């Protein structure tokens, strides 16, 4: 059982390394992920529209504030779920 698991893991690792050769080299700045207009708009518009210097906080709370609301709901739901599973009835 463990040798089969080891074989599957090595096979998956080899496939990932083979597929990873198409990825851009480490530290590339000409990728489309950096040069497209959405990222450039976020970088250029942070100080002007949001008034905060930190780009990541402006993204989280202003440009993508709705996702962060769902995020906070997720962690609240986890607290409620653990309360339901583990809290005993006070006698």
């Amino acid at each position: 059982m463990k040798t089969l698991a080891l074989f599957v893991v090595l096979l998956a690792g080899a496939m990932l390394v083979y597929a990873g050769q198409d990825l851009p080299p480490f530290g590339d700045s000409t990728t489309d992920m950096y040069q497209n207009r959405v990222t450039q708009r976020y970088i250029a518009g942070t100080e002007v529209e949001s008034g905060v210097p930190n780009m990541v906080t402006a993204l989280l709370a202003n440009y993508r504030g709705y996702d962060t609301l769902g995020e906070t709901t997720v962690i609240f739901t986890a607290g409620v779920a653990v309360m339901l599973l583990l809290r005993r009835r006070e006698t």
Partner: protein
Amino acid sequence: MSRIQESVIVRTIVRIMVPFIELFALYVIMHGSGGPGGGFQGGVIFGAAIILYAMIYGIAKGKERMPVTLDKILASTGLTIYAGTGLLCLFFGGKFLQYGVVPLLPDDPAEVSALLIDAVEIGIGITVSAVMISLFFDVSPPESEEEELPAELPISTYREA
């Protein structure tokens, strides 16, 4: 009590450190807009301070510092602050979570945006810290030695028969 809980060095150091950890958590939350940090990171650090206190001094003393009812109320309050800020922007004619339309300062929507981002981060920090403390208190074992399983589970009921 375990040996760590009885040691004088550990108890004294924890008593000195816990206020500074809480102050650092507040620093991380409030400086989320000017540097690295934000609501989630500061909330976890605040929760870790109370968890450290409860680990060393016992669960009963931890529950004195942060009672369970206050914990439940705080977890909902943070989320209400976040959604309430969004609804406030709706009242003043903008879209949901459009921070620029709230007339706190007359002619500077960027500054109003920065202030409301800070308010939202405080809300997130309150919720995350309350949930971390609640998770710790739920997972920890009860104080008494006897714990009774609820008698409604079918498999355990069947096993006795």
